[in-house]
């Protein structure tokens, strides 16, 4: 790779790459994102390479190993191109057949196709599958077209053309104006207008300024940022370079979560390739603009996703937030003006520059423009990453894209916004997904976690879960957060254990108010949201725990008992065999019995009984 000295040279390179690319060449795109990797994607990739090599077909069949394509539930996913045939749950043993039947003979293997959950009919093409059909994948869709470790793939599909456009005569203020007009708001949770943030930072005093990618992705249950970085790192990098140019920064950072080693690897690879081509470094593409990026790995602290804590962490200190009467755009990293944006926010930038703000503002609602990627997980049939235009309803996401609730159970709530968000109850399921509407119902957009809960989830347990999470993650600086969460957790634990008192609710609400008003950062000020929304929408569950000492969902261990349905038990003996504390007794082929004294309520008997004979009440 030789350094590119002008935008013209970049265009030439791109044209060459496009000319060399045969769109009609049969090829397989194998997803090797983290989800598919857990299903053994590596082995599938190896099998394809081996089989193709054995048959001497290297020049005839292309193999593309991609990052996360989104439909993780169905991994390993293999898409046959150019037709777009979608095979799911592919195992190494299927590979030879795929090559012979589909790639060579152009026949379909029905067994590997997706079956429509309603009609049971097989669906051949990716574009027809409901999970994809209702999405609008303008950011995430490129993941399936490229290899994340090959800059040529990204260049071929138009990568770095936005940077080229910017460096080819656009003034920094013009770039900022476009971003402002696009209405883009931060995807990290706060939803602050990105263009305005950039403008303030550009105007701030000082020669040295920093831009940072927030890839700390602390929201437990969300992995959009991970998948973007792993699957299309250059898109984030291109956005960052454009931002740096607009703001007047020459040094950037990416702060990546410690749990994401592959994201770090792919991003570092992207940096190296970009440097070789002169897309980073001095005089980028022959312009006078210079910029480079360093990688900082997080240390597994949720609070470090908060802007000032993140900057403290990069400086080598414990990640404690500071008060923000002085904004980080004026005094940020090393006390210099700093712009921090989320991974997905940065990835939106090249698109906006290329397609224009007029195009971008046509997507979404009045105050929430563009698309948002969500991690649709929990008790929904189709789990994975979904990118939707802002404004569609939770119902559309859960039922059209998500295919409804697992095992035909009843939807109870959708949790958005992570530990700062709330639970939207089933009756508000028609709420449109945009920044304002979700806040109106007491939750928030957040960074993109969307956890679907069904009748088997206990909402008191969920509140306790989030409070417990935050209790462990509080940095300990502000007393209301440190002690308040601790007390809140103790009270909620009591309620879950049947030791709740009626006056507990009032104490919880008091604590919530104190935290909201007495904490420095949003970890503390929003910490009570999961509690408050469950109290608001599911008060009856709290009452059942406190007054009747019952957990209606059957989750809180202290409030449930396992027993055996004498009518249904066949005496097969499986539960007896599996019970680790020998609490089950009974002769073969006779009704069994559970000794409640010995039972530790691990629930394994309930899970394995094939006759539904174990009762949980």
């Amino acid at each position: 790779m030789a350094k590119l000295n002008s935008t013209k040279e970049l265009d030439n390179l791109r044209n060459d790459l496009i000319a060399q690319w045969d769109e009609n060449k049969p090829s397989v795109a194998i997803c090797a994102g983290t989800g598919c990797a857990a299903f053994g994607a590596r082995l599938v990739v190896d099998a394809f390479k081996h089989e193709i090599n054995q048959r001497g077909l290297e020049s005839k069949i292309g193999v593309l190993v991609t990052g996360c394509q989104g439909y993780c539930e169905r991994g390993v996913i293999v898409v046959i191109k150019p037709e777009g045939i979608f095979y799911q749950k592919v195992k190494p043993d299927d590979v030879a057949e795929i090559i012979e039947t589909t790639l060579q003979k152009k026949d379909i293997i029905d067994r590997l196709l997706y079956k429509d959950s309603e009609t049971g009919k097989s669906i051949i093409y990716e574009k027809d599958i409901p999970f994809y059909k209702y999405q609008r994948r303008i950011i995430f869709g490129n993941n399936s077209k490229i290899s994340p470790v090959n800059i040529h793939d990204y260049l071929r599909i138009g990568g770095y053309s936005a940077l080229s456009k910017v460096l080819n005569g656009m003034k920094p203020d013009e770039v900022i104006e476009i971003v402002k007009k696009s209405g883009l708001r931060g995807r990290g949770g706060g939803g602050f207008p990105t263009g305005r943030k950039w403008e303030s930072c550009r105007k701030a005093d000082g020669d040295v300024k920093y831009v940072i990618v927030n890839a700390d992705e602390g929201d437990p249950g969300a992995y959009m940022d991970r998948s973007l970085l792993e699957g299309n790192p250059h898109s984030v990098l291109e956005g960052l370079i454009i931002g740096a140019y607009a703001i007047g920064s020459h040094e950037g950072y990416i702060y990546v979560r410690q749990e994401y080693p592959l994201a770090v690897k792919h991003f570092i690879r992207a940096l190296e390739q970009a440097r070789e081509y002169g897309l980073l470094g001095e005089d980028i593409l022959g312009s006078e603009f210079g910029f480079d990026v360093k990688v900082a790995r997080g240390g597994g602290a949720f609070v470090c996703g908060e802007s000032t804590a993140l900057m403290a962490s990069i400086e080598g200190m414990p990640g404690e937030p500071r008060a923000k009467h002085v904004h980080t755009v004026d005094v940020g990293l090393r006390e210099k003006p700093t712009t921090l944006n989320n991974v997905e926010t940065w990835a939106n930038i090249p698109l906006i520059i290329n397609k224009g703000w007029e195009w971008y503002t046509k997507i979404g609602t009045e105050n929430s423009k563009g698309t948002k990627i969500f991690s649709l997980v929990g008790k929904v049939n189709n789990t994975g990453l979904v990118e939707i235009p802002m404004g569609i309803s939770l119902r559309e996401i859960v039922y059209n894209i998500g295919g409804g609730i697992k095992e035909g159970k009843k939807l109870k709530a959708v949790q958005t916004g992570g530990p700062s968000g709330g639970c939207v109850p089933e009756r508000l399921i028609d709420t449109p997904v945009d920044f304002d509407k979700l806040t109106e119902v007491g939750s928030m957009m957040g960074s993109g976690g969307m956890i679907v809960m069904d009748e088997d989830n206990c909402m008191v347990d969920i509140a306790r879960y989030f409070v417990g999470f935050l209790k462990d993650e509080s940095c300990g600086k502000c007393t209301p957060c440190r002690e308040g969460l601790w007390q809140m957790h103790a009270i909620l634990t009591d309620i879950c254990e049947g030791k709740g008192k009626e006056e507990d609710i009032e104490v919880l609400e008091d604590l919530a108010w104190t935290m909201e008003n007495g904490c420095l950062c949003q970890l503390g000020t929003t910490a009570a949201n999961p509690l408050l929304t469950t109290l608001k929408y599911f008060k009856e569950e709290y009452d059942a725990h406190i007054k009747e000492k019952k957990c209606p969902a059957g989750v809180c261990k202290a409030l449930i008992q396992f027993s055996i349905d004498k009518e249904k038990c066949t005496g097969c003996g499986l539960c007896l065999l599996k019970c680790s504390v020998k609490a089950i007794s009974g002769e073969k082929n006779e009704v069994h019995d559970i000794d409640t004294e010995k039972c530790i309520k691990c629930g394994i008997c309930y899970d394995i009984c094939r006759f539904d004979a174990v009762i949980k009440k």
Partner: protein
Amino acid sequence: MEIDTKKLEEIIGKYGKCKSTVIPILQDIQEEYNWLPEEVFEIVAQELGIPLMDVYGVATFYRTFSLKPRGKHIITVCLGTACHVRGGQRITETISRELGINPGETTEDLKFTLETVNCLGCCAIGPIVVVDGEYYGGMTSQKVASLLKKTRGGKRE
């Protein structure tokens, strides 16, 4: 504990000697030893010219760092929200029972360490258990029991 000072110097040399490099330096040292022996704090503090307290402050603030020896096999159970609603807690309890240790602890023979984590970014196929860096999705109490057996026997699926 015997510390290979040359290795330490190599790591420190890679990042340079200033306050802001303390986190990546400790991360790399931990990668080397699997935990942070007490002796390294003094060396790092001296080399970087910062108070011992600052090194210790960082090492105890971030969850990444372990100040106790960890086992040969590291078992991590995800307790992120998505895994929680699908029963991650029960998986943890099963492993705890099987190994006779609580989360955060190591078996006496230094074979296993049980850790929990808040999300691994694999939420769609939870509950997730990671054994020595390999991800296992859709875990149940039963599956995890056989996974442990395999790990004990030195073999894995």
